[in-house]
């Protein structure tokens, strides 16, 4: 369908649809790509639906029973036809598969430089934490034209972040981190829904993404941060929980040195290797014995029940900041 394909290439035409209730607004770099595939599928579906419906109506009229005793012609089938209507749908569906897969790859791979924002879902609200320390509830401010990555966790049951105008969606699952990324293309306010049923007030678990011009966003960011950055809150927690008695920067502690650790690959006692990412840091805090680094004893106590999801994020951000610091010092 030419309209759909041109939508993806030429953003100006998308205004044609705004205000009509049949298509959602396109407000991210992904929206045009998803819509192009959607229109292609509508074209395919319309063609085959009309083909089948047309044939059925035509046959039903042309070959209607004219005498009560009449029977149909003796036809058993035809190999060529069977092959044709097996192979043609197969080829078409493989085209759709490859197309859908390529869109999905783009959705799954964020660019290198993203603005990271932590999201915690709980019954029935969204909490957003910016690295600089701003906290928001049910509202998320982001700049236009920059890729944004959400690192998401749940405090209770499964939730799902869904922003129709961006064509992105991902479950927010307790016990692990999931990610989505998007790059807004137009300033404005966009609906955010919880798309995974989460109990009584599920349909009230909504919010808005506020996309701002970069200058406005900077103003917003610098406005009133009482608690300091996420990493600094994590640093304080690191002291309060006495993590620093074992995780010391001088390699004299009973636990691994955390400086420069994030993003590295470490060897475990089992001989396997693992990349230190958010999920591994999280697991090591909550369930330290699960994957102990080689050369250390499984003596670390669990913090399960002692730290909230949000505090976990602060700790992770602190551990990340130690790596950034180490990189700067190395230079």
């Amino acid at each position: 369908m030419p309209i759909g394909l041109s939508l993806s290439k030429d953003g100006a035409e998308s205004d044609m649809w705004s205000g009509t209730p049949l298509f959602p607004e396109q407000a991210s770099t992904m929206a045009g790509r998803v819509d192009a595939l959607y229109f292609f599928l509508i074209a395919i579906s319309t063609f085959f639906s009309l083909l089948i419906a047309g044939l059925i109506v035509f046959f039903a009229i042309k070959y209607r029973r004219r005498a009560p005793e009449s029977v149909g012609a003796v036809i058993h089938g035809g190999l060529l036809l069977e092959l044709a209507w097996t192979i043609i749908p197969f080829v078409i569906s493989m085209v759709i598969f490859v197309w859908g897969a390529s869109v999905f790859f783009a959705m799954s791979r964020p660019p290198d430089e993203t603005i990271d924002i932590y999201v915690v879902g709980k019954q029935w609200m969204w909490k957003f934490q910016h690295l600089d320390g701003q906290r928001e509830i049910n509202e998320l401010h982001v700049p236009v034209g920059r890729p944004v990555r959400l690192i998401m966790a749940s405090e209770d049951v499964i939730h799902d972040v869904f922003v129709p105008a961006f064509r992105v969606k991902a479950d927010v699952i307790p016990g692990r981190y999931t990610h989505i990324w998007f790059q807004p293309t137009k300033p404005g306010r966009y609906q955010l829904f919880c798309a995974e049923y989460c109990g009584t007030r599920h349909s009230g678990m909504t919010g808005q993404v506020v996309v701002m011009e970069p200058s406005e966003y900077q103003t917003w960011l610098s406005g009133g941060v009482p608690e300091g950055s996420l990493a600094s809150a994590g640093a304080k927690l690191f002291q309060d929980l006495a993590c620093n008695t074992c995780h010391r920067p001088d390699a004299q502690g009973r636990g691994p040195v955390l400086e420069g650790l994030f993003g590295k690959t470490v060897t475990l006692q089992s001989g396997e290797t693992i990349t230190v990412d958010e999920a591994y840091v999280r697991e090591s805090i909550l369930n330290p014995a699960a994957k102990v680094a080689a050369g250390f004893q499984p003596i670390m106590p669990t913090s399960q029940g002692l730290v909230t999801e949000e505090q976990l994020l602060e700790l992770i951000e602190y551990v990340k900041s130690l790596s950034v610091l180490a990189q700067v010092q190395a230079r």
Partner: protein
Amino acid sequence: MPSSTVFMPPRHYLNDGYGIKSWLLTRDHKRIGLLYLAAITLFFFVGGAFAVLIRLELATPAGDLVSDETYNKLFTMHGVMMVFFFLIPSIPATLGNFLVPIMIGAKDLAFPKLNLASWYIYIIGGAFTLYALVAGGVDTGWTFYTPFSTVSSTTNVIPTALGVFITGFSSILTGLNFIVTIHRMRAPGMTWFRMPLFIWSMYATSLIFVLGTPVIAITIALVAVERLFHFGFFDPRLGGDPVLFQHLFWFYSHPAVYIMVLPSMGVVSELVAAFCRKQVFGYSFVAFASLAIAVLGFLVWGHHMFVAGQSVYSALVFSILSFLVAIPSAVKVFNWTATMYRGSISWQTPMLYAIGFIGLFTIGGLTGLFLAAVGLDVHVTDTYFIIAHFHYIMVGGTLMGYLGGLHYWWPKISGRLYPEFLAKLSAGIIFLGFNLTFFPQFVLGYLGMPRRYHAYPPEFQVLNVLSSAGASILGVGYLIPMIYLMWSLRYGRLAGSNPWGAVGLEWTTTSPPPTENFAETPVITSEVYDYSAPLEDHVA
């Protein structure tokens, strides 16, 4: 060639014993089929009443008719009732029970007592679920997703889970019974490739019953154990994995979609052959397509979890397999259409339902391609697009086939004809009402309206009002057949043994058939759907 012998046989399965005991202790597959028919009709109307309330609530954007708690219970109970207690048993337990032995020339199923037991198991499971309803309902959604169902919900999860668990065994026993019957009890001359396509579809369905149902039973049992005893299967705080539940649940529940639609495809093959008076085009392709769907259907469950944090590569594998399972369905649609070419096509009610099925199933199947394409699924999953898609398959597909089959075999079941004009009228009402209800939901879903929402943004209202209006038309469409079919039991014109001039073993015996189905075991001497020879020449 309408039958010239229009009379009510003096002795048939309906007058072979009277009174409640003769029904509740019967071992006759036909009577058990009718017991199921009564039970699933009850569940259909209970589930339908919930649907009416859901659509009434959604006529306005604000959550104003019922509370959010009640709304969540309404869609949960609608799903549980319709999926586990209506759609899954619908065609196999009623028409399948009635027809499988007759269509292959047998006196009964292989295990008549087991057959009766399976009905009682179904009723016990249904009783647990109805108890859960009366005791205050359940709000987990029919999918019972963890950890919500195990740690968060405060409603009657255990009784509902027990109901689903128990009912599963009735499916397993029915499947077992059909498989053994089809293997061992075919009449002389009834070779595998002379079997009606309905039997092939029952065979494929039975395989899924036997292989898939134990998995849902175990999964639901794990939910109950975690909820009661805090064993950590799914709750991450106990060391479990919430997504593991989804894998187990959909390993059964995706094949269950084929449990629902394969029997209906079997019915449609029979209807198209009978009302075109013609051999089904590409008989063996249609038969093997049923088996291909049953096998491939077990390998696509992960497409329900494209946004649930599975790896990119496993998503791609499930995506490509989901496209493959679409091929045999497409093959069937093309073959049915080709069957009409140079047929002698009657426009009687069952054919209208068959045509309705092909049209709606085509739309349901094609929109499945949207969902199999991972990059597009991300946007539309968990929205009304999904709701519309699976209602096109389950209501547009399964229910149209079921109603078409019920009309086609009603003269055989009851010995009487239903009123043709009313039947055509209600088939038309159902087709229109269905499309008005569910087509706007595709648009709503792409706009982004999430499923299971009690209240929604006002810009979605117009489409929701259309949908609710369609639902009220659909409701009327379902009530009319209910009324005239009951009416016809007493007042309908006598049908005679073969009112449609169809071929097939079931039309060689009286309407209604005797308890033992055939006066003497038939010997099949003709190919299936052979309209070149009169029905009398099909058996010796």
